[in-house]
């Protein structure tokens, strides 16, 4: 039996190396981790990791320019799929970032900025280790103590249209959705690849997950 093929989508946004290294570390030879810019590799993958950094507009543009938009949408709807940080945000319908931008609309919902007028004492970006409260069971939470801390860096957060998409929440001024799940898709605002043991466990769970 050939090894599981996990593709980290490379569309020129952000530090894929960290994600790939962490995935390789936890896969421990049980899966091949391939960083790829080739839509065919995504189509052939058993599972897909979709990272992202920087601004929403630049991410959307990069997805278009690299021809990755359609393959990513298809993967998000059909196979085990892990969105990370901006890779969560661009799955939504629309983001307020960069004067507003249409996103992939895989998950209906919006992307909003932390409200500086309501919470003037908050530092933005939300940067550092914060708790994720697991609001629903999920195979990717397996072995992770509820309310474990993960590493975050972001100024915007997602608001899924339907509450049942949210499977993790975090408090920063207000309570926001920090993880969502739908069918074989799981996406998280924090960086599991930089979140020490809790993050590595999540990546390990993903690598061994068949999407059920």
């Amino acid at each position, binding site marked *: 039996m050939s090894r599981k093929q996990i593709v980290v989508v490379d569309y020129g946004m952000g530090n894929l190396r960290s994600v790939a290294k962490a995935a390789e570390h936890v896969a421990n030879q049980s899966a091949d981790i391939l960083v790829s810019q080739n839509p065919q590799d995504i189509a052939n993958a058993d599972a897909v990791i979709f990272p992202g950094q920087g601004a929403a507009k630049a991410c959307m543009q990069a997805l278009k320019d690299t021809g990755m938009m359609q393959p990513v949408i298809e993967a998000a709807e059909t196979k085990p799929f892990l969105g990370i940080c901006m890779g969560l945000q661009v799955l939504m319908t629309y983001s307020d970032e960069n004067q507003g931008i249409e996103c992939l609309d895989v998950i209906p919902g919006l992307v909003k900025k932390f409200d500086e007028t309501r919470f003037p004492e908050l530092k933005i970006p939300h*940067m*550092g*280790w914060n708790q994720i409260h697991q609001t629903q069971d999920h195979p990717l939470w397996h072995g992770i103590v509820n309310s474990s801390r993960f590493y975050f*860096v972001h100024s915007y957060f997602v608001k899924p249209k339907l509450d049942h998409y949210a499977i993790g929440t975090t*408090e920063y001024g207000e309570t926001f959705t920090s993880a969502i799940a739908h069918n074989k898709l799981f996406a998280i605002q924090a960086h599991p690849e930089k979140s020490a043991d809790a993050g590595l466990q999540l990546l390990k769970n993903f690598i061994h997950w068949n999407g059920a």
Partner: protein
Amino acid sequence: MGLAKRIIPCLDVDNGRVVKGVQFVEIRDAGDPVEVAKRYDQQGADEITFLDITASSDNRDTIVHVVEQVASQVFIPLTVGGGIRKVEDVRQMLNAGADKVSINTAAIHNPEFVRQAADLFGSQCIVVAIDAKKVSADNEPNRWEIFTHGGRKSTGIDAINWAIKMESYGAGEILLTSMDRDGTKIGFDLELTRAVADAIKIPVIASGGVGELQHLVDGVKQGHAQAVLAASIFHFGQHTIEEAKLAMQQQGVEVRL
């Protein structure tokens, strides 16, 4: 509960080796950055900062190799500072596995570099390091200026205004070192830290002067810093990161344990 205050050990690296002495009873080679970083990770460090003090620019590849090695074994945020002068340096460090770069002198010579780097790579990975020294007399209102060359050369730039400017240029974080306190072990310059932290929206990392655990607590509670950076207090086995976190927690500071 909410965001934890961070504790960041800082390692000086010269030609690929940790210098200024790091002592752990359990590790074989205290000069190996990978071994030292792994140890701090196990103790619960929230991030690790490497400061490349290699004098010769011919040896730039050495720090890149160090970052690659550490990033494949330590899965917490890594910051690299020292000699980051152009966009290509930033790209090289990020590609090697660094999460953030710290820009110091180059920001002073060319502030546009900060804007350029933030636009290209995102503010989240751009830390601007500020070395500040008090220049006001005791009977005057506090005033701090930016110094270069290890605190020997004044630039005449006001530290608080500079922090505000760097925030507007896209810095994601400020690493603020008091050159009056650096190496003294008498604690952070809390007035400086608070003045800068209260003037900007982005997080401030306090640095310079930590000699005991209470200083770390003070940096957060009195200095309003979001993170505290220290070197010798951890390197010489005086305290572990975990002890530091417990001390902070006992005084009501939220930490990751």
